[in-house]
């Protein structure tokens, strides 16, 4: 048994403020204090802050589009090599790091659970092969369904039982944890050479609308008892004025659980002259009135990034904007995807407003509902998290950073008027307790008895960016894996999945079409058990 002694324990899920005390770990779990005669290994945590391991709710770290991004960015890899050390693999990359580096770097920041946010079932094996290579963290993934032919067909029939069967089967077939929707209907529409969709545009081939798709999937996810609600990348991402679509989507789903991904990219308003400005205030107001919703921010930070998403029409428009490299891949019956490298510039007003919109959302919304992400690597690579935490905790620093931006930002956003400073508790909520709760992960995001012993210790310092970029210790399921920000032990994380009480099967009504329209045999579609060495499932009810 390990006793972490005399640390300042920050565990907002189990109590409002920090307390100095001991934490006991045995068998990879947090356990109650043992009897006084029990011998413990003691780690003196005097002067250290003890927090649960951080939980990444939305990131792009593995799978076909991420690897496509890696191939597209050799310059990122030349410039950022990571040397092999005795038990640790080498790699490359800052913006789209190779997989071993991704794991070491996440763990080195105190992250112990990471979710890959978008998986096309047809290529899910690729995702799991790569996740198997991701060291040190627990991992899971979300399965793309918002442009799936059979999902749309089932919705068209109006038979919710049929849709439930299909969605349950798809999650199992792809080894996923949650249902993901990306620009519902909009990707399919684009494949037909048609334009952007609104919430009520009928899309081919079944002429149902994005609203129909969202409502049906949100309902079925609830009915299946999934631990995480539908994870939504709404229509109309990135466009000035898209806040209308975002609010309309939220209104359509009000009263039901839903998670809105990278909301920063969906909170743009226009002024009377049709010019780009922040729409964060109205989105924040709506969220604060709707505790059933959660969101992650998708913060933009200045410097190189790589946009990658299943939203292929968005990536096409970004390619038209940048005129540079463009990766795109349409996948039969399921989705599209695209990759476009991007540099966010401090002196570009649009980018500066994007930066401010993300911070506005983080400062205006309850941290139990608004989680820190960069939609890695879309808004910025995840290694900038400590810098964002500093912006949240230190209003003077935030103001000084705002001063460096084009003057228009202060007119087009209300960031300058926001004085709020995040407390340590709130940082732990937005990076750990909140996302773990939204994901329905009972053993994560807190340090109560029975929780996984994913524990991170920091040395308290004035410079919070330095503090959060270099944990003194990281324990993964009770095992010390990181010291002073560097990995010290190679441990394999578990793959997190869901399991149902019923054995959902691919609907027999669709079998003929599967055989005709996919390019592989139905029997070769589901990911085999061989791809999961260590698995942990949430049983849905």
């Amino acid at each position: 048994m390990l006793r972490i002694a005399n640390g300042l324990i920050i565990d907002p899920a189990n109590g409002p403020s920090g307390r100095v005390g001991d934490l006991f770990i045995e068998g990879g779990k947090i356990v109650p204090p043992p009897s006084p005669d029990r011998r413990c290994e003691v780690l003196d945590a005097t002067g250290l802050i003890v927090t649960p391991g951080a939980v990444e709710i939305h990131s792009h770290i593995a799978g076909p589009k991420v690897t496509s991004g890696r191939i597209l960015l050799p310059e990122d890899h030349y410039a950022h090599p990571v040397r092999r050390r005795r038990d640790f693999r080498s790699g490359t990359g800052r913006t789209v790091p190779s997989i071993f580096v991704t794991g070491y770097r996440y763990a080195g920041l105190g992250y112990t659970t990471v979710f890959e946010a978008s998986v096309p079932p047809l290529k899910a094996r690729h995702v799991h092969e790569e996740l198997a290579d991701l060291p040190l963290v627990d991992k899971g993934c979300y399965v793309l369904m918002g442009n799936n032919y059979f999902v749309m067909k089932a919705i068209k029939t109006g038979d919710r039982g049929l849709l439930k069967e299909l969605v349950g089967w798809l999650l199992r077939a792809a080894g996923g944890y949650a249902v993901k929707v990306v620009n519902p209907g909009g990707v399919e529409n684009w494949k037909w050479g048609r334009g952007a969709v609104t919430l009520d545009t009928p899309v081919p081939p079944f002429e149902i609308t994005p609203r129909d798709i969202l409502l049906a999937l949100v309902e079925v996810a609830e009915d299946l008892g999934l631990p995480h609600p539908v994870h939504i990348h709404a229509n109309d991402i990135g466009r000035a004025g898209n806040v209308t679509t975002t609010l309309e989507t939220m209104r359509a789903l009000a009263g039901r659980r839903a998670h809105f991904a990278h909301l920063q990219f969906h909170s743009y308003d226009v002024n009377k002259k049709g010019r780009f400005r922040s729409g964060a205030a109205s989105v924040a107001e709506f969220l604060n009135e709707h505790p059933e919703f959660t969101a992650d921010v998708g913060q933009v930070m200045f410097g190189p990034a790589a946009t990658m998403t299943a939203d292929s029409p968005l990536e096409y428009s970004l390619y038209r904007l940048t005129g540079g490299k463009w990766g795109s891949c349409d996948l039969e019956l399921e989705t599209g995807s695209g990759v476009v490298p991007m540099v966010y510039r401090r002196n570009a007003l649009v980018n500066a407003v994007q930066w401010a919109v993300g911070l506005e959302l983080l400062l205006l919304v309850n941290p139990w509902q608004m989680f820190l992400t960069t939609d890695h690597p879309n808004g910025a690579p995840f290694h900038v998290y400590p810098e964002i935490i500093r912006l949240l905790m230190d209003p003077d620093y935030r103001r000084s950073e705002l001063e460096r931006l084009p003057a228009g930002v202060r007119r087009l956003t209300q960031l300058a008027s926001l004085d709020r400073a995040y407390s340590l508790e709130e940082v732990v909520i937005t990076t750990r307790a909140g996302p773990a709760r939204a994901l329905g992960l009972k053993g994560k995001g807190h340090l109560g008895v029975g929780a996984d012993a994913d524990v991170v210790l920091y040395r308290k310092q004035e410079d919070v960016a330095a503090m959060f970029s270099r944990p003194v210790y990281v324990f993964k399921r009770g095992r010390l894996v990181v010291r002073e920000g560097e990995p010290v032990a190679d441990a394999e994380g578990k793959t997190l999945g869901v399991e149902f009480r019923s054995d959902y099967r691919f609907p027999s009504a669709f079998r003929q079409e599967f055989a005709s329209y996919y390019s592989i045999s139905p029997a070769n579609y589901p990911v085999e058990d061989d791809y999961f060495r260590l698995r942990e499932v949430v049983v849905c009810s």
Partner: protein
Amino acid sequence: MRGVVVGDVVCTFCGSLCDDLEVELEGGSIRGVRRACAVGRAKFLAARDTASPSINGQPASPEAALEEAARLLLRAGYPLIYGLSTIPAEAQKEAIALAELLGANIDSTSSHCHGPSTMARQQTGLPTCSLGEAKNRADLVVFWGSNPAESSPRHFVRYSVGARGLLTPQGRKDRTVVVVDVRPTATARLADEFLQIAPGQDYEALTVLRALVKGVAVEGRHPAGVPVERWARLAELMKKCRYGAVFFGMGLTMSRGREANLELLLTLVKELNAYTRFHALPMRGHGNVAGSENVLAWQTGFPFGVNFSAGYPRFNPGEFTAVDLLARGEVDACLVIGADPAAHLPGTCVRHLASIPVIVIDPHPNLTASLARVTIPVAPAGVAAAGTFYRMDNVPLRAKKLVDLGLPSDEEVLRRLRERIARAEDRQRSHY
């Protein structure tokens, strides 16, 4: 005794990875194969346990062969691991781990295949689609410098020319097929339009097409050896189709211009998306050459031609690619797995291979094995060993183990070799 029929078998012979085969087993061996093309069928029927490991041409125990292979690799100053294109992703991971441990070079057959396509992709990107999407939607199919009639015999039926899909219920009747090549190939015979271009003039041809697509007038009556009116017609077909797919092959990647040809083709395809949906698909040859690019890219950041001698991955085609390393006589040992370089590389490369220690890990005796110091036979993947293969459009499929030949898999042999080398390095370290 009647045989057992196993369905939905994945054929790992070529990049098409047909996964609808039926294999009849009897008494632990393969008796028949249905639905496969001639080459695929031969692959299944040829699988048998014949050879034993060898050292310097003499039969050896598996342990002795591994020991000798480890010794040769440990002694080398600048080794090369080469091939990777017919082995499962699981084995490719092991090969990369071994290369990293040795500080070696590692390269796939991309060197003399689609390496230039990938280099072009690094410069321009790649708008592409899955083969099933081409089947379902493409009403215009262009084969440029590729000849699937002979290289991937079932490609037409399953994915392209005659395949029936969602928006192409009548198959061939719903499609226009165009072939651009330097000679009338078997594929050209099926085309609605065949443009026979002058050898080495693909770059000119693509420049003309880009201009015509953009409405820019072109000088000259016969650019790249084809009347300009026919290029204009192709440009119109490309702009007016509903969903276009160009399947490009080594006629572009290995002819004059190489990656420059591909940069131009991919740029053309990008530009066509201003008019319609248009996609480019590389016709990858080997069963898992696409996998080698994926696994190398996600583990090292680079898709082929990777060097570990600095302790981290470096990528430089021309420096760390197999043909160049061998032709310049730089590498002093070579582990070959999943390729037959003696049969396919230029003479200078083969002469150098013959002068250095070569280790061959392969299910079959091949030309390279004849000049190897050590050979280790392995179970043919997809027949006697399971594993993941990536189709030419990067769709991953799990190949089955159908029979047990009592041979270790590629992955097992590589892992044992790596463990042996790691132990030896540990011993060496403890000496200091």
